[in-house]
């Protein structure tokens, strides 16, 4: 009604957004893109940026679950193994009767969700430290992989998986649509449902949450199950993008997911943060990786450059935190 106050509140909100960690991280990504495009013309080509976003969508999916877990005060070290299990076992779960391939995808996602659920039960009910529980789960899954890996003598050509990994409806990779869809859902759960609030609450102060009636164990369990689900989805996408799953396909995603979460401003101690920061965090990571790839230097120097860039960009996007 009152235009001057609404304008004032708009500027206040706008300045809040502009100084927020997610925005700063996003701005950093754009800055790096701009600088890199000037220095290496091919880098800024639409096709390349599109590919970077497509790659980021895999990290983004894995990091979605990781963001939930970290906000809830835990950490999931089984993510890499879950991604691999998903990509490797999907062909084994295919049913010939279903030509679309949807059932195989659903079966895989149900399986990885149950793996996550197992993590959650261990953390919530056995009270095993999340690091230990998820590390042990990763070890179990390695055992499982020995059994199932290489068992697929017949490569199953799942049309839906192939479509997810390769199609570009409206010029945009299908994986990016999956990521956007999941992101919308994640942001909705995180910020617009009681479940999201409970997750923040148990991460910030589990004891106070329990005394406020928050179902601590149930919420913890759900969080790890979500992480299993998103890691499974990332595995499906990776399978599609590479045409073939293999053991070790998920390995790069453990540290990447943690890095994306923390680069995006979520506190590793839990209770604070948002997936809105993790998204540009994931973009930042793939961008740095691509940048390092096109630099002509020895492996040692490239590694040093990568580490230094992460550190410098952390300083840029993390400046807000320093000021406090």
């Amino acid at each position: 009604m009152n235009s001057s106050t609404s304008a004032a509140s708009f500027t206040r909100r706008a300045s809040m957004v502009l100084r927020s960690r997610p925005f700063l991280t996003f701005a950093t990504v754009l800055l790096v893109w701009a600088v890199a495009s000037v220095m290496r013309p091919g880098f800024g080509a639409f096709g390349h940026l599109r590919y970077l976003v497509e790659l980021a969508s895999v990290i983004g999916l894995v990091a979605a679950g990781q963001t939930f877990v970290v906000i809830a005060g835990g950490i999931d070290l089984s993510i890499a193994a879950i991604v691999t299990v998903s990509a490797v076992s999907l062909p084994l779960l295919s049913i010939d009767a279903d030509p679309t391939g949807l059932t195989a995808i659903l079966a895989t996602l149900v399986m990885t969700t149950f793996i996550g659920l197992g993590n959650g039960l261990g953390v919530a009910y056995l009270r095993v430290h999340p690091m230990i529980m998820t590390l042990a789960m990763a070890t179990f899954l390695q055992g499982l992989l020995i059994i199932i890996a290489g068992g697929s003598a017949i490569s199953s050509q799942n049309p839906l998986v192939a479509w997810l990994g390769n199609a570009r409806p409206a010029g945009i990779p299908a994986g990016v649509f999956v990521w956007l869809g999941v992101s919308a859902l994640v942001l909705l759960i995180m910020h617009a449902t009681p479940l999201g609030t409970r997750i923040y609450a148990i991460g910030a102060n589990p004891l106070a949450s329990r005394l406020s009636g928050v179902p601590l164990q149930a919420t913890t369990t759900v969080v790890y199950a979500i992480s299993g689900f998103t890691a499974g989805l990332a595995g499906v996408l990776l399978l599609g993008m590479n045409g073939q799953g293999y053991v070790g396909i998920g390995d790069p995603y453990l540290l990447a997911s943690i890095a994306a979460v923390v680069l995006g401003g979520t506190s590793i101690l839990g209770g604070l943060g948002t997936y809105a920061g993790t998204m540009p965090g994931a973009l930042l990571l793939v961008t740095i990786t691509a940048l390092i790839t096109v630099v002509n230097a020895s492996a040692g120097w490239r590694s040093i450059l990568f580490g230094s860039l992460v550190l410098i960009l952390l300083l840029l996007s993390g400046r807000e935190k320093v000021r406090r």
Partner: protein
Amino acid sequence: MATDAPYLAARGVSKSFFGNPVLRDVSIELYPGRIHALLGENGAGKSTLINLLSGAMPADRGTIEIDGNPVPRMSPAAAQAAGIAVVQQELSVTGSLSIAENIGLGSYPRRFGIIDYTELSARAGAAASLVGLHEPLSMPVGNLPLGRRQMVEIAKALYRKPRVLILDEPTSSLSASEARILTELLQKLKGEGVAILFISHRLPEVMALCQHVTILKDGVRTADRSIAGIDADGLVRLMVGRDPGDLFPHWTTARSRAKAIVIKGFSSGLIREADLEIKTGEVLGIGGLAGQGQEDLLLGLYGATPAETSAAEVNGNAGLPRSVSQANAMGIAYVPADRKREGLHISHPIITNLLLPGFARAAALRLRNRIKEGEIAKGLAAHFAIKGDLDRPAQALSGGNQQKVALAKWMPHQPQVLLLNDPTRGVDVETKREIYIMLRQFASDGKAVVLLSSDTPELVHLCDRVVVIREGRIVSELQRADLSEQAIVAAAVGAEPTVTAA
């Protein structure tokens, strides 16, 4: 004593946080052999002033002087070197270290660069016995109840043999007997020429102990005078800026015959075989020395710690709640004593704190309605007089307002039984008065209120009935007519009612 310069002084200091002024042009002077009171409402800036005096934070403007000489860059280490010791309001003890290691922290005796445990044992032991801390010195502080940790904190200050001793609400978590030990100790130190600055919300204590008073209101010094010739009402007037009413409300009992909770043979934690009936419309007090199992009784009733009972009924349902969610569903709410650790999510906005019990029981994936949430929260804030922007983190609230949030958050759920664990700990008089009125209001609305309190006058003036717990057992039940501080203390220490001096 005859030095003209104060041992420690602040001259015209100001401090603001994120642009909010918390102290404006405040001066204070601490002289040897004098106990100086610093009073003010929650959030008046007392702790902040102390932080400036002890070098924990730099002042924006103004100077800190030691023995009349301005100190350009005050730091905790510099303060220590000058013989200034602080008992912080926020405990600075480390749970995993032993009592002795905590007491000596920051100034260990050394030999060849290594902590001299023999010497430490002797000196920390001496400091500990000064405050009546008789637990083994090797015990980790994490194993001690809150009140005892506070004593460690005080011993830590004494260990440094300070010239200036600053105590920020040292008594708020102490039992009566511990508080008495402290009072005697401070008198003795005063006699030895130590300059003492004492903060408390318990005015009788202040009146009995202090000679001089500085009063802050909204970060501005409103009084700096001798305490002689002023009474408690006068102090309150200076603190709140208007005439105080009675601290305790007048009330008539609203107790009905209906039973809210009945337990028989109840055991939980330290509590053994307790039988108890709680009626609707009553305020039931729970008294006793600190750490006798009072808290376990509340937590057991609340389903937060495992409890066993031979028979139980809660609001008409048979059996005790087995989890917190069940207790909430049965209409029980609990407000913990330790606000920061158990009561609130201090890094989260006030509004989510207020609404958390609602989120805890709502369907997990139903969409939130921010507008409705805002209305509920605003209503609660108005009813409980919680001021300011509700989107700030709860951290930004003063202790008393935090306590109000911890209480208010249960109100939308109309609990029939309120379990309150020391709800006025560290709360200023005005807020106390508000809380007292609310408690009686709850009772007259037909709720059952269980009030665990370390502040005996509260039990005397607010309760329909008080049970006293000693060594995990209910040893005495006092009706309103029989209530007096002596009676409660006598029951608490196990003396015969006639032998009131314990």
